[in-house]
């Protein structure tokens, strides 16, 4: 399969990249002696003629399909997103996780991507908390409690990666249910299970446990590494989560990072509440105080809790003395783009580009790159529905995935639609 082959090459591609760069100036006949399968980069078009695969357009169309599916689910449900999330990550450390079909073994791949996921999660959800759970020898154990500091979770995970025994879905769900019942009512309860096994060894009726989770309003999602299982699919359908099975390492990375941005929240799941929070000021340079997290004297560079005046080292955190949640305004601002998303850009159909009445910008509005291919033919571009500015494909991806501002809309005070 063409796509499978291309992806397999990219999956092991981290070390191939250096080789490709070195081999870049070899002749074509020399390249056939290296690992390049040049026949895979050809495709047939409608009339049966061969043409090379346009990777850029392929990547962009995959990206747009993903964007469209995300925005359609968001508009179908109520647009609210669960911004204060309490997520438990369940890692399967059974025998099946030591299989070597993912190189070097499933558990190493899982651990690597869980680390990246945790960092990305706290980047996108600074007010949320994560806890880690493991399933080993048929028993579920809590590795780390719910906490807001990525380093402690990652350190705890990397120490305990031995796999053995069976895996038990019911025990994990029971444990998670017990822990998540203790969190405040305004938080969104989520579980993400990374399941490597093909079976589950349960002490009782797992259907009852699933109903219990559904009643506790816990949203369970599963990412499988082996094959699709009915019980996982049933669990996710009942609780409103997503179930996906990873095909290879890069696909697994894509699937797990999809859980980092806040999911569209069902409003009935969490009560709205006013949460009391403090905005500490930075302590003056040179002031000496005893830090409440390390229990030792420190000089300057900390924050003072506004309620009890204890010193904390980093934000966001919970004051250990009085329990007040301490944040700074940029942490709240990190989540604002989830509340005010920008509209996806529309693709420009090629026939309208040749219309002489259509005034075409020669350069992308964001990066000033020329929008015309060599030979003065218009290349692929997109247009913002509000400000009608033209953007190149790379700017489109950057704007929607990282920047979350449309440069065109922000650069005109009185927009073309005359809306402020």
């Amino acid at each position: 399969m063409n796509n499978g082959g291309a992806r397999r090459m990219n999956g092991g591609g981290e070390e191939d990249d250096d080789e490709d760069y070195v081999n870049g100036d070899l002749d074509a006949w020399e390249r056939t002696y290296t690992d390049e399968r040049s026949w895979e980069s050809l495709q047939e078009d409608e009339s049966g003629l061969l043409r090379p695969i346009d990777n850029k357009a392929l990547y962009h169309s995959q990206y747009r399909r993903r964007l469209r599916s995300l925005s359609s689910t968001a508009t179908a449900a109520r647009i609210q997103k669960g911004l204060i999330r309490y997520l438990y990550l369940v890692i399967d450390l059974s025998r099946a996780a030591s299989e070597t079909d993912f190189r070097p073994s499933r558990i190493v791949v899982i651990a690597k991507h869980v680390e990246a996921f945790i960092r990305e999660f706290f980047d996108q959800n600074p007010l949320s908390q994560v806890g880690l759970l493991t399933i080993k020898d048929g028993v579920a154990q809590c590795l780390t409690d719910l906490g807001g500091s990525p380093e402690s979770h990652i350190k705890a995970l990397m120490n305990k990666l031995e796999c053995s025994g069976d895996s038990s879905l019911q025990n994990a769900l029971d444990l998670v249910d017990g822990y998540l019942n203790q969190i405040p009512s305004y938080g969104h309860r989520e579980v993400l299970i990374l399941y490597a096994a093909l079976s589950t060894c349960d002490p009782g009726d797992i259907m009852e446990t699933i109903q219990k989770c559904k009643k506790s309003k816990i949203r369970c999602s599963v990412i499988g590494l082996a094959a699709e299982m009915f019980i996982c699919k049933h669990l996710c359908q009942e609780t409103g989560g997503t179930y996906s099975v990873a095909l290879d390492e890069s696909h697994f990375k894509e699937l797990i990072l999809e859980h980092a941005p806040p999911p569209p929240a069902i409003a009935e799941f969490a009560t709205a509440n006013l949460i009391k929070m403090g905005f500490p000021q930075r302590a003056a340079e040179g002031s000496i105080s005893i830090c409440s997290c390390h229990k030792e004297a420190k000089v300057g560079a900390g924050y003072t809790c506004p309620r009890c005046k204890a010193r904390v080292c980093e934000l966001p955190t919970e004051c250990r003395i009085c329990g007040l949640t301490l944040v700074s305004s940029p942490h709240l601002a990190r989540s604002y783009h989830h509340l005010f998303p920008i509209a996806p850009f529309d693709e420009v159909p090629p026939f309208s580009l040749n219309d002489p009445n259509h005034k075409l910008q020669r350069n992308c509005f964001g990066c000033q790159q020329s929008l015309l291919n060599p030979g003065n033919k218009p290349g692929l571009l997109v247009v913002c529905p509000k400000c009608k500015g033209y953007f190149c494909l790379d700017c489109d991806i950057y704007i929607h995935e990282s920047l979350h501002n449309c440069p065109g809309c922000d650069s005109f005070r009185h927009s073309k639609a005359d809306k402020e």
Partner: protein
Amino acid sequence: MASAPSKLYADDVSLVVVLVDTNPFFWSASSLSFSQFLSHVLAFLNAILTLNQLNQVVVIATGYNSCNYIFDSSSDLNQSFENGRMPVMCSSLLQKLEEFLIKDEQLSKEVPEGRIKSSLLSGSLSMALCYIQRVFRSGALHPHPRILCLQGSPDGPEQYVAIMNAIFSAQRSMVPIDSCYMGAQNSAFLQQASYITGGVHHKPQHLDGLFQYLMTIFATDLHSRSFLHLPKPVGVDFRASCFCHKNTIDMGYICSVCLSIFCKHHKKCSTCGSVFGQAQSEAASTSDKKRKTPET
């Protein structure tokens, strides 16, 4: 999201994207005239280009009604030296700036009195970041990019979300945002921008010597900054302001749905219409329409 690219560029080559504030409301009331300011800035840009042969400079104008690219030292039009003069002194920059100012004025419409006359900083920051992403895509060898804001207009509170988005995106791509604020009050946005992204913020006390401030603080490349003693961020205020009175508060209440900040306990959130303390019911659906409108 595309990850930050591999940092394989030469140590001291820099790309400086300069955002020049051209807000007529500010310049008409400033002690430094716009033409004097321009002469300081042009000399500074030429100096950056002489520091290293591979340095690049891009100028984006931040106007009152619009923003646009003014100058790009790496484009083919600007490469030739006319009669041995410095490239930035050539008339194209000044000509394009004048065209921009004329067009910006034509876009003006009647504004109600009492509004803060801020320039469109979020627009020019977004354009600068898009340009920098293009430079990152161009290959393994590229200059260290950074952004320098020469700003005098006050902060426009309606741009808060857009500016914070730009700041976080710059932080992820590791692009420092330096800022030189020439206005009367302090600019909280620029202070936060420089603090979060690791840039330098400075408010010159004597605007007549602006060129000297620019050369000593903002001209050096990123690699050499670790050897220099630059102004440290002091007193960056990260406290939030409440949505109801716009006062700065150090303890407040946050709506768990939309993260709006209030200073007192309320029964209902004014931004998203959620009723506090009970499960969301169908009664809240009438405020759906109100919730959808705050799209900045």
